[in-house]
């Protein structure tokens, strides 16, 4: 177990957007303030290609919340143990009506450290500091009394720019309270997930509330609890909501699914929802079974450390299919060497995959700490079949200036597989930047399967980017899907 201080430093850093940390380093402003950051860079894993560029120091922005809960729950083995350790082991620090605190004077030391980090790295957004303004860039120092976050360099600038700040102040306050809630030491009944689905009961994927109700979760009445639990469940449920046969997206007008999308997802649904085979446990019940559906999560970061019982929710959506979840990315399993030391690369396990077989009888999770394109080139996962394969990219930052070069090599390979590629984005701007980049890079080479738009199963919790408190985002805010264009054989018209 790591020292408490180190843990705190970890989670403080876990909040920095990876892409921003890259751009920080490009500018030469290496955030050396934190010893951990450097340690993370030095500790390079042997076989990652381009490791010098790839060592993004930070397991990024996925919510602090999620990360903390994740590590807490994961390290203790099971959900129950995690819950009891978080509720019984640590006593309650904050009352439910006492969640708002200034970050700088927070009763939680971890949040105080985070405030110090924001003060050292975020810069004042006032227009005087912009290029062409009258003042040099300055770090934030003044803490808004309404949201408790350091957002401007001085009270004058805060007052001057108050109109702009007012637009996000409420959300920032909500983030503040949610962060304190997560560390309040309370019991978290919402993190007890539902078990397998009754065969007769259909799932309603209209929105989070109908989903949780028809999946037979315990009632989550509080909005704050909803925000905490959807931050974790958004990953499996976003995938499930698109490839499930009861998907809320359809080809009616406004249903966002395109004809090509229906073709692609119907192929997957054919495998995911097989008819009853009449098989049983004895010899006479032996039946052929389809191979597992492979869901590749590329560029996996925080989702690779998601509690496994959250991922098992994906298996509960498809009780008759087998699912192999493959998390690939140089940043997957980052900072988790204590719990999961990477296995050696052997002939039988050429990429050193961490295999967690049977997290559920129908589900297997493999994690590979490497770039996808290096694996693709070896043909390790070949052949790809649209009936069995699906790619998911959770906020990949395809168009982000700091990370788009990493995707340049991968994108043609993904298009070549002709398997559906589901992409999410933090905000509308983030998603549109990705779409523009794909349009520019692979113009005419891809079909849109799902029109871009807000994700029905987005995280209801907002997250803060510690390098820029103005930049608030929601996990999986938007979702869209595309795949490589298929050229069907056509007959030449007889003349």
């Amino acid at each position, binding site marked *: 177990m790591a020292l408490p201080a180190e843990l705190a430093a970890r989670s403080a850093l876990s909040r920095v957007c990876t892409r921003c940390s890259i751009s920080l380093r490009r500018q030469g402003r290496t955030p050396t303030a934190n010893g951990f950051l450097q340690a993370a860079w030095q500790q390079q894993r042997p076989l990652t290609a381009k490791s010098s560029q790839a060592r993004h120091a930070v397991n990024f922005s996925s919510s602090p919340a999620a990360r903390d809960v994740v590590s807490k729950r994961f390290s203790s083995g099971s959900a129950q143990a995690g819950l009891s350790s978080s509720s019984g082991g640590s006593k309650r620090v904050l009352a439910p009506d006492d969640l708002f605190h200034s970050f700088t004077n927070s009763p939680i030391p971890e949040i105080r450290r985070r405030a110090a980090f924001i003060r050292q790295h975020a810069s004042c957004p006032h227009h005087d500091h912009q290029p062409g303004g009258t003042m040099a860039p300055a770090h934030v120092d003044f803490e808004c009394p309404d949201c408790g976050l350091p957002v401007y360099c001085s009270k004058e600038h805060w007052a001057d720019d108050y109109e702009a700040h007012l637009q996000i102040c409420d959300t920032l306050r909500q983030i503040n309270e949610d962060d304190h809630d997560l560390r309040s030491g309370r019991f978290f009944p919402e993190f007890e997930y539902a078990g397998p689905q009754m065969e007769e009961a259909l799932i309603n994927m*209209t*929105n989070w*509330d*109908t989903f*949780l*109700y028809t999946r037979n979760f*315990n*009632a*989550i*009445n509080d909005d704050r609890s909803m925000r905490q639990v959807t931050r974790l469940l958004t990953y499996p449920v976003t995938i499930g909501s698109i490839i499930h046969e009861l998907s809320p997206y359809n080809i009616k007008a406004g249903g966002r699914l395109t004809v090509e999308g229906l073709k692609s997802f119907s192929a997957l649904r054919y495998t995911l929802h097989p008819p009853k085979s009449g098989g049983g446990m004895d010899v006479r019940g032996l039946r052929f079974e389809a191979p597992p559906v492979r869901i590749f999560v590329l560029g996996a970061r925080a989702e690779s450390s998601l509690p496994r019982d959250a991922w098992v929710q994906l298996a509960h959506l498809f009780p008759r299919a087998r699912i192999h979840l493959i998390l690939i990315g140089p940043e997957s399993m980052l900072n988790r060497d204590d719990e999961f030391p990477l296995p050696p690369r052997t002939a039988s396990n050429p990429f050193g995959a961490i295999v967690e077989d049977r997290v559920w009888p129908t589900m297997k999770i493999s994690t590979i700490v490497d770039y996808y394109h290096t694996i693709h080139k070896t043909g390790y996962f070949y052949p790809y079949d649209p009936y069995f394969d699906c790619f998911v990219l959770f906020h990949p930052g395809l168009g982000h200036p700091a990370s788009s070069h990493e995707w340049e090599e991968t994108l043609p390979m993904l298009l070549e597989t002709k398997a559906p590629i589901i992409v999410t984005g933090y905000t509308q701007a983030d998603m549109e930047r990705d779409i523009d980049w794909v349009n520019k890079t692979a113009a005419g080479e891809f079909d849109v399967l799902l029109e871009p738009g807000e994700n029905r199963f987005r995280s209801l919790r907002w997250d803060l980017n510690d390098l820029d408190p103005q930049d608030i985002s929601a996990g999986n805010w938007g979702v869209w899907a595309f795949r490589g264009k298929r050229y069907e054989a056509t007959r030449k018209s007889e003349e």
Partner: protein
Amino acid sequence: MAGYQPSTYYDSRFRQSPALIRARRPYLGKNAILGLGLSAFALGVYAYTLRAIGQDEFEDVKVPDVPVKPSSEGEWR
């Protein structure tokens, strides 16, 4: 605990919890329209039946002006 567990979506007095109310909200309007339609149909059938029966004509039944006097008293004894 084995056995029956009460649903968490209702409180001890069987009132809906906020989570259930939120889950039902998308269907509130459609359910209300369906309910109104069903009850309107049932009431319509009922009203039509009453009206149809109430309009029965008894004009063709001949009613004597003077009550018919019993012909003989001994018949009934």
